[in-house]
């Protein structure tokens, strides 16, 4: 699957989303719940703006010295007997992971939630060499059972499904006979998954933050599945995006505080885990072999550009949870496993404009995302920056729009021309005007008047009124 979801064009995807009333109602109620919880958690902690500034500072510092911290991380993982592999591309990452699997003659793999493994299509690759890969995060497990339905949200991947739909999936795929109560559904999933954990040859985890000073992998979960994934199988592989790193445990603490509050409004998730290397002498559990795969896959191309701040992202989805566009179109409309504002910025950078050039325009630039981001990524400014690049550097804007903007530029910088244009606008639009409004507008106005009235230009422009009044008062 990779980062890209399906082959449909943007318009068709959005059309599907807008038609799906059930999904839209699930998304809007989830947004309201998650937003309220985040605001409550931030208020309870206090000094939220200072926390955000600290988070931003940590992320910026780490990105500015990424080579230094990656080397430190790599050295410290190696010191504890772990193996580190830097993958420039998704192909390199998959080849390395598959080689481990072949060497171990592994048949069954359990994994915890990881967006970067989705991005590199790791599961498909492993399945193609005859492995069974089992997602153990409940949301991901549901989607995997449902014929690999793609995630629609980076924290709650099955956000677009309700409990009745999940019950249907369980019934069909797992012969589940009980009710749609979340507790019963979750219990059933736990029973099924427990057997898989015990039989798995390899465990694969993602990584919320790697801690450079100790070579540890920091994981944040509510289900505890990452702990089973990393403690039962004899071999553990962790896959991380190359920017998901912090210098020390001190910064880890700050970012976890921001992450759990921003993502789900929790002071802490049920499990915060730091795994350091393979099992050493005296340890009662943990893998015998540990591999860390650090994935670039286009990230280093973003470093040093005007888009660098997007790499500050800690994948909390706060921006997604407040986005008024995501609210109505849902995650799949973005055509990427990274939806919402962060996806609309990141997907074109990682996947290119050919597939994702519409995404930066799927925003009103309302800045709700920027306001919500716990590490102060100026998301709406980055969306705007994409538009600038698409128009001015890539030359991808439609001709009609280019012409219109040229006229705008000329009119708006030449007052006399604007003055003249303003005077003729009224008569030019008069054939379309009834009762001081336009209900069926021509040209670009049509898209406006398809759904709303457009006012007719004033009989007397404000400037004429002002000038006339000034004359009278003299």
């Amino acid at each position, binding site marked *: 699957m990779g980062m890209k979801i399906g082959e449909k064009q943007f318009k068709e995807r959005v059309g599907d989303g807008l038609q799906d009333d059930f999904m839209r109602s699930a998304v809007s109620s989830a947004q309201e719940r998650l937003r309220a919880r985040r605001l409550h958690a931030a208020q309870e902690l206090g000094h939220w703006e200072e926390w955000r500034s600290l988070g931003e500072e940590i992320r910026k510092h780490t990105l500015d010295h990424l080579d230094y911290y990656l080397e430190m991380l790599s050295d410290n993982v190696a010191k504890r007997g772990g193996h580190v592999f830097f993958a420039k591309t998704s192909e390199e990452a998959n080849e390395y992971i598959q080689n481990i699997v072949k060497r171990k003659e592994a048949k069954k793999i359990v994994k915890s939630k990881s967006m970067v493994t989705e991005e590199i299509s790791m599961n498909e690759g492993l399945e193609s060499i005859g492995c069974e890969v089992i997602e153990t995060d409940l949301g991901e497990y549901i989607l995997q059972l449902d014929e690999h339905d793609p995630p629609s949200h980076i924290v709650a991947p099955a956000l677009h499904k309700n409990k009745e739909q999940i019950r249907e999936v369980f019934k069909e795929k797992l012969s589940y006979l009980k009710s749609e109560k979340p507790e019963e559904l979750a219990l059933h999933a736990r029973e099924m998954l427990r057997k898989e954990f015990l039989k798995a040859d390899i465990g694969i985890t993602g990584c919320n933050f790697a801690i450079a000073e100790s070579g540890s992998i920091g994981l944040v979960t509510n289900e505890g599945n990452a702990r089973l994934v990393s403690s039962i199988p004899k071999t553990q592989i962790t896959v991380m995006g190359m920017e998901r790193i912090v210098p020390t445990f001190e910064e880890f603490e700050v970012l976890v505080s921001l992450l759990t509050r921003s993502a789900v409004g929790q002071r802490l998730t049920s499990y915060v885990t730091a795994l350091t290397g393979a099992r050493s002498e005296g340890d009662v559990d943990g893998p015998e072999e540990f591999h860390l795969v650090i994935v670039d896959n286009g990230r280093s191309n973003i470093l040093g550009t005007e888009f660098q701040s997007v790499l500050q992202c800690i994948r909390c989805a706060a921006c997604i949870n407040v986005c008024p566009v995501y609210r109505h179109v849902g995650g799949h409309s973005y055509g990427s496993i990274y939806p919402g504002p962060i996806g609309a910025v990141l997907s074109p950078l990682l996947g290119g404009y050919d597939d994702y050039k519409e995404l930066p325009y799927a925003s009103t630039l*309302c800045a*709700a995302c920027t306001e919500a981001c716990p590490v102060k990524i100026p998301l709406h400014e980055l969306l705007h920056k994409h*538009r600038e690049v698409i128009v001015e550097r890539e030359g991808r804007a439609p001709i009609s729009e280019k012409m219109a903007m040229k006229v705008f530029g000329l009119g*708006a910088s030449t*007052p006399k021309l604007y003055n003249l244009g303003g005077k003729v606008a009224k008569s030019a639009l008069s054939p379309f005007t009834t009762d001081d409004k336009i209900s069926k507008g021509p040209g670009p106005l049509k898209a406006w008047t398809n759904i*709303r009235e457009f006012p007719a230009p*004033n009989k007397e422009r*404000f*400037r004429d009124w*002002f000038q006339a009044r000034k004359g009278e008062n003299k």
Partner: protein
Amino acid sequence: MKVSIFATCLVDMFQTEVGKATVELLERLGCELDFPITQVCCGQPAYNSGYVKEAREAMKNMIRTFERAQYVVTPSGSCATMFRDYPHVFKNDSEWREKAESLAAKTYELTQFIVEVLGVEDVGAKLRGKATYHTSCHMTRLLKVGDAPFKLLQHVEGLEVEPLVNSHNCCGFGGTFAVKMGDISERMVDEKVNHIDESEVDYLIGGDCGCLMNIGGRIERRGKEIKVLHIAEVLNSH
């Protein structure tokens, strides 16, 4: 106090009444007004669509237009935000950067100017009825004008202001977004209109003509009996 009015192109072309109300209100509050005649548009339609080169030409015209102004006041949160953002647009332009900074520093949105600069919260307005207020995105999130409109509205005699459900969500205007992404915009504005309708008010009040044209145009198309007013009109009614 000398104030230069920046009417905005929407007010100039489509909403003369909002401009008139702004002028009468500020004069009543003791301001001496002028309208620099070479003003056109802040450049936002081009800028937000990615046409920065074209936008900069419009912006330079505005910088020249208001060069001598003491205060620049506009009945639009969004256009005021654009002026305040000029220094960012010209940050690498040694010729225009300082001029852009000077314009940004003296620009105020109307309610912000009345409350923060004039120090007035009760403008002596009267309007009977129930209203709700649309907090536009650029005004609240980027210009950070949140309380000023509510402070002014709570002193309007006879007016009851109801809270609006999900007021933080954008109305779906977004400039060219409203036509480029018409289908999405429709769902957004419909949700906004539904919440306004559920609040059972006589008036929808706002501080941005763009949002009001969007919401008002949809209200009218759906045949709802809700009158749409710019806050300048409310504060000027007596």
